[in-house]
């Protein structure tokens, strides 16, 4: 593992809420532990800013809802800020899932009809640096 790889791993871990990571592959071993101060300050930014779109409620994820066409969940497509990505059915309430910023849809982590927690990452979007 070279320095840039190590940096990439650190940046990735920093973008999550993981506190400690062990990694082993052949002869290579890697142990990363976040210090309290670092994790709470949150000043370090990953080089590639992928942002998670979190579920706004606890409920069932839907790509469409009556009267609306289903949302396009093709990975790689461009998104506008506030664009609908789906809905959460919380009892009788239906709450929209919206893109928090303009960017590119990178990963879809959810399927139609799945139960989701509040705050659960549903999508990862790539946001241009500086946004």
């Amino acid at each position, binding site marked *: 593992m070279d320095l840039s790889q190590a940096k990439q791993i650190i940046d990735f871990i920093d973008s999550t809420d993981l506190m400690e990571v062990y990694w082993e592959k052949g002869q290579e071993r890697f142990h990363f532990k976040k210090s309290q101060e670092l994790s709470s300050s949150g000043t370090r930014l990953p080089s590639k800013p992928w942002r998670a779109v979190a579920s706004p*409620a*606890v*409920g*069932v994820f839907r790509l469409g809802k009556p009267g609306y066409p289903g949302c396009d969940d093709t990975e790689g497509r461009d998104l506008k800020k506030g664009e609908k990505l789906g809905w959460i*059915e*919380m*009892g*009788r*309430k239906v709450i929209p899932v919206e893109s928090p910023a303009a960017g590119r849809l990178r990963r879809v982590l959810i399927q139609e009809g799945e*139960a989701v*927690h*509040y*705050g*659960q990452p549903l999508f990862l979007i790539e946001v241009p640096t500086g946004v």
Partner: protein
Amino acid sequence: MFKKVLVANRGEIAVRVIRACRRLGLQTVAIYSEADRESLHLRLADEAWCIGPGPSAQSYLCVEAILSAARLSGAQAVHPGYGFLSENSRFARACREAGLVFIGPTEEAIEKSGNKAVARVLAKANGVPVVPGTEGAFRTLSQAALQKLAASIGYPLMIKAAAGGGGRGIRLTRDPRGLLTDWETAGREAQAAFGDGSLYLERYLERPRHVEIQIAADLEGRVLAFPERDCSLQRKHQKLVEESPSPAVSPRLRRSLQEAACRVARAVRYSNLGTVEFLLSPEGKFYFMEVNSRLQVEHPVTEMVTGIDLVCEQIRIAQGRPMRRRPVKILGHAIEHRINAENPERNFSPSPGRVSKWRPPAGQGVRVDTHVYEGYCVPSYYDSLIAKLICCGKDRRSALARARNALEEFQIAGIDTTLSLHRRILECEAFQRGKVHTGFVEQEFLNHTVPMDPILPKEPHP
């Protein structure tokens, strides 16, 4: 009969209820807010659902989110704990309509007991003594009518919110001059805190004790009364120390209190666990105060002194099982200290943060109900109760001795706590002799002459 219970609460009571469910072989579902991700209750439950952000209005008070989690997890019953939605009849109704068993009283019983004015009329009609005061509550009242009413009851007076609880919307008035201002302030406070500005007047008793009777009623209408708890040590109407039995209650008075509590319970057609609160005058006269239609914070005192697991009883009642027939016996004496994350030196300001050291006491007759562990971070969103220390012994002296040792042993660092105040209370001679009243803590330890400071709205909590 339900097999899976969703616990619609957080903190130590969620832990307590989950333990009772496990004892009964029931599966448990925890719910939590984002601020409670580290909390112990979600680790003890069979599954846990994050239902919203930190503020309780969007999480622990959000009926839709809780019912959504219940549906997704397949829970068949909901235990509301105390505080939050535990005394909310709309929540109880919403649970029933969603096909869930609400582990608590019926909606009708919650409504009747929750409205203090209605409960008072019912108590009086059933021969239970009440403090002299107005019949029913008033939303608006002319100044002349108010003065006339106050004079007929007699000063000093308490102005109370009909929908009240937790010490909000309450004012003490000692003479006619301050009456109107206090009435208006209390009305505003009640409107802000409960969305209902209705008020009523009541004579203020000097130096009363707070005694309460735990009741349990099954679905067939059988009512069981437990020995009294004495909760006279309070600060701003928030209980600090509770004990059972009361040093001021004789066996004869206990029977009268229990009979009165059962009459009130039957009058509101009560089912499940509840508590009937009374004021006890220094002369030994008691007056009905209110019914709390939920499990109470201080329930372990009764558990320790009778050997009965109240939460298990509560769940069994909700399952429709008939109530125990064995008589309730007093096995000794028990005392509870509520440990809060607050700084007593700084007017009890909340002290959230990381608990860097946590060494709770243990041993025979020592119980600690808590959700805290070393490294836990006390969130700032909720009430500041972090642990309940309950000690019991064969008599009051031995229970107090155990409590003294346990409090000495208890070590907490990283946050401020009320441990020091509890140690001081136990050293106090008047307390040791059992000579206290509801204004005692403020008078002896906080140098306040009038125990009725204005109270700012905070998180709803019993």
